[in-house]
């Protein structure tokens, strides 16, 4: 099995600490996404796991084998960790088939047929059956990435690292490629780690999303859970759109300008003041009489749905602005509607309050 465990990993470049005690646990065969803004340390973590950078302290284990321990590490070629770099980095002097075969063992003639078959199978797996004889320069960007994935999977690695492999591709291509790469990874059973700054990408393809900030993993969870129950305010805003409302918590419910809302983990929340994060799709426009009254400020139509900006009277304060995502009939700007919040929300205590 090939579970990836990262324990308290530290790495500095000069006086800049890039990894400050990174922890990560990816179950065998799962695909994890490292999600974070550029400079947060996610790529450095990838390079330490691959063996291209030396850690300062901490530990990395793959399937129980220790590959990094403090400042010492197993050389990259013996880690059984392969990588799909951002721009593919295919060997320009080799054909597609030779690229894929690069990591396959055996130079003997007897091995040649097996190698050919393996290359053919892998190319078919990534959806590129008949291009083995082409040179990398003859491929489109998406094809190059597919070849890079096939090449990474060829030696049957324990872990495949994907360093923003889709970021250079256009959106239409990205979606299909993502799905195919995920399927290919699953087919081979390799544990995958995908670095990305695109929250939608992370949430849609990963089994586990680890949010990285300032060199530490601030939260690692399944995508749906991460989205619903972000660990802190910043994460709530980073993994999706969030409407933040002032709230006062008492008795397991939050009083907010849009009404009294149920809380996630309500049992654990103490009384106090702070903010709740509400996802735009949790707001529903309903018939008058229920919920709170709000005024429509603007409507943006997206095709599959629409976002409606509304303001809710905030009592003595300024009106509170909220965002509602809807698939129903669109209200006119200036109209009065009633708003309801469906489902529990996350509460974040104000700094200093308890």
């Amino acid at each position, binding site marked *: 099995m090939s579970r990836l465990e990262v324990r308290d990993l530290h790495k500095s470049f000069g006086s800049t600490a890039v990894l400050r005690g990174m922890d990560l646990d990816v179950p065998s065969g799962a695909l994890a996404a490292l999600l974070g803004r550029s400079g947060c340390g996610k790529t450095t973590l990838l390079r330490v796991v691959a063996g291209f950078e030396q850690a300062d302290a901490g530990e990395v284990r793959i399937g129980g084998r220790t590959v990094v321990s403090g400042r010492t590490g197993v050389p990259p070629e013996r880690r059984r960790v392969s*990588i799909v770099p*951002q*721009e593919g980095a295919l060997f*320009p002097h080799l054909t597609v088939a030779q690229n894929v075969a690069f990591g396959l*063992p055996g130079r003997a003639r007897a091995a040649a047929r097996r190698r050919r078959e393996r290359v053919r199978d892998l190319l078919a797996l990534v959806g590129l059956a008949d291009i083995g004889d082409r040179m*990398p320069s003859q491929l489109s960007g998406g094809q190059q990435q597919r070849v890079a994935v096939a090449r990474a999977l060829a030696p049957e690695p324990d872990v495949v690292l994907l360093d923003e492999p889709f970021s250079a591709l256009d959106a239409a291509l990205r979606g299909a490629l993502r799905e195919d790469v995920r399927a290919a990874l699953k087919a081979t059973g390799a544990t995958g780690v995908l670095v990305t700054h695109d929250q939608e990408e992370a949430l849609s393809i990963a089994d586990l999303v680890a949010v990285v900030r300032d060199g530490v993993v601030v939260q690692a969870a399944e995508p749906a859970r991460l989205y619903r129950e972000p660990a802190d305010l910043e994460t709530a805003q980073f993994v999706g759109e969030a409407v933040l409302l002032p709230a006062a918590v008492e008795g397991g419910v939050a009083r907010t300008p849009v009404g009294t809302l149920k809380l996630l983990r309500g049992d654990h929340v103490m009384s106090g003041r702070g903010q709740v994060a509400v996802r735009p799709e949790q707001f529903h426009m309903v018939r008058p009489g229920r919920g709170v009254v709000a005024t429509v400020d603007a409507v943006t139509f997206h095709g599959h749905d629409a976002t409606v900006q509304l303001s809710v009277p905030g009592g003595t304060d300024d009106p509170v602005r909220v965002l509602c995502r809807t698939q129903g009939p669109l209200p006119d700007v200036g109209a009065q509607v009633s708003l309801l919040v469906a489902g529990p929300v996350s509460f974040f205590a104000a700094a200093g309050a308890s």
Partner: protein
Amino acid sequence: MLPATVAAGVALLPVVYLLVRTAEAGWPTVAGILLRDRTPALVARSLLLAVAVTASTVVIGVALAWLTTRTDLPGRRAWAVVAALPLAVPSFVAAYTWVSVLPQVSGFSGTWLVLTFSTYPYVFLPVAAALRSTDPALEEVARSLGRTAARTSLAVTARLARPAATAGALLVALYALSDFGTPSLMRYDVFTRVIHTSYTASFDRTPAAVLSLVLVALTVAITVGETRSRGRAEYARIGSGAARTAHAIRLGRATPVALAGVALVAAVSLGYPTAVLAYWVSQGRSAGVDWAELGPAGLSTTWVALLGAAAATALAVPVGILAARHPDRGGRLLEHLTFAGHAVPGIVVALALVFFGVRYAQPVYQRTPLLVLAYAVLFMPAVVGSVRAAVSQSPRRLEEVARSLGRTPAGVLRDVTLRLALPGVAAGFALVTLTVMKELPATLLLRPTGMDTLATRLWTETGVGAYAAAAPYAVVLVLLAAVPTVLLTRVQAHPDQTGAVEAAAPTALQEVGT
């Protein structure tokens, strides 16, 4: 690291000899030689020549490179081949064609003329390779940001071509400082000629050794300056996106002017020497060509040239890789040490090895190994530059991927780094073969007893004013040297054949001149 250190040690051998010589002489003697009033004048003359030749070769080389790679100049591929061909005309052969017909062309202007038109390909070839393989997206971005085509060329293209141009200019400057044949024939007193005179004129070799050390100091200063200007820019492009060919810039009404300029360069550097050689060959017809001597001389020239190039390449590859991958103090120092070896004039390297051979290597003295060693010392830097440029062009990302796919560091070196550097290394090898064929002073002094190369025969005949008798050797020498030159330009003219390699290493894989 160890092979690179060995290479640097070999390169340093002549300088060490010079230092030993000078130390044996004692400080008062050395000071006396340095303070003679002709020494400063000598420095001034040599520097003037080097600066003038370098400036004119950069202008000609860059202009030709730009015209033949980035414009719609009619017949630009053919012109690109023609522009590289002067490499096949040894500078002292060119000098001979001027002296033998127009004796009034001499002194500074004669030396400058001959050296400029013999050495501009050292700038032209690497710049053309760099221009041909730079990512057109960079230029397109500049255009889209509101630059005109001409300003784009200046701002972006010139920037990208600069490392290649400075590397080529360094070679030209070193060539101008250490060339012996041309100033000798032109009777212009620069370091090499004065050193040679003082070597042959007296038994006391100390003045020559001291003057050689001054010359080495000059060339080291130039090399350090070049490295400073090279800066930290690494042009390695991560990724393997297909490199497209840039759109040609329309010359329009400037076409006739451009054609005339290109034709003029070809006429001076190729047309004139060819015509004069043809004239002397036809003059010498009646005397008859001595085929019995021409054949063996041609064979031995080729043989020692290949051996010399192989030795130089073997020594240069580790230094080039080290300089590219560890551009820190150690790597640069070793690279500079090998350049210092190149900067010592051939005659000094030869005499240093005579000294070394007589004292320490009697069995190989006046045999092929010592001559090959001299060639290796003299021409190693040419390959070091090619290797460094080629290796620094291959993205490190590729090496990392290879490691993660199970290759050991040695395997990565063999299957990725060296493989990607191969065109650069091969170009360096070809260039050195070509240069060794033209080499004169070291061959004169170190050739095995009884062996004649084309260059030494040519020198002997010219020395006694037998211009017609010298002509056949000059012609064969030119033809022999033309072979690697044409191969070099074919690689240059058909980038599609190496397109895949260039995709990942667009700037200077074939930076041949360095």
